């Protein structure tokens, strides 16, 4: 296919329609393509991990809307709560943590706290709704 020659007897094909179509395709893919890489975390609720042991070996951490965390009946800042749970974890490696976010706590806060716990080596972190019977 000769695109540039203008010799007698040859057909000159205009590139303009091709360029138009390619431009339209380019605009479409630029607008429609997504480069976001979605991640995921396994968000287990308590019973999904078994309730045979009840709350034995489990520490409850209540996330409050003001940012504090109630652990062991005491309200403290998240950093202190993390340290407190980490100390417990040092004594009991099989320690489970149940996070109970209160109404008004943003999901990002709960995810951040759960990730901080996992970063400290606590593999068994699950969520639990407030006010649900065991």
């Amino acid at each position: 296919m000769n695109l540039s020659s203008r010799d007698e007897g040859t057909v000159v094909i205009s590139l303009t329609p091709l360029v138009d179509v390619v431009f339209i395709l380019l605009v479409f893919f630029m607008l429609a393509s997504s480069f976001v890489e979605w991640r995921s975390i396994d968000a287990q609720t308590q019973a999904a991990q078994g309730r045979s042991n009840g709350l034995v070996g489990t520490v409850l951490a209540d996330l409050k809307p003001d940012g504090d965390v109630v652990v062991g009946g005491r309200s403290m800042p998240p950093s202190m709560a993390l340290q407190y749970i980490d100390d417990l974890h040092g004594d009991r490696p099989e320690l489970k943590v149940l996070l109970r976010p209160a109404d008004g706590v943003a999901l990002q806060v709960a995810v951040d706290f759960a990730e901080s716990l996992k970063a400290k080596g606590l593999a068994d972190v699950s969520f639990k709704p407030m006010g649900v019977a065991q």
Partner: protein
Amino acid sequence: MRLHGSDDDDGTAPENTLPLINIVFLLLTFFMVAGALERTDLFNVSPPASNSEQAAPDGGPLLLIGADGTLALNDQTIGEEGVGKAVLGESKLVRIKADAASDAAFVVRLMEKLRQAGVEKVSLITMER
């Protein structure tokens, strides 16, 4: 820049459009290969950021939770009470795409409803931090 017309009717030489076409082709190829086409969500949801390395699963129903508590399952708006029934027996895995600003207690209540409906695994979709 002239894309049409003859090159010698007024004595001016045409600009060579081939480099332009080459670049456009390269850009097109890049966006086709590197980008991923996704369905747009029913409403805008900005998932929480996490350090998780785990890729989001592909299968399973997708439960959207908006910042204002709006719910949609597989692009159909539903109410909170319908969440359990909607997934009953459908799948053992449910993906939750919840807004980072949504109420965590509400999301956990929904997770509990899903568990009671027989869902064994709930995958909370997050964004790379």
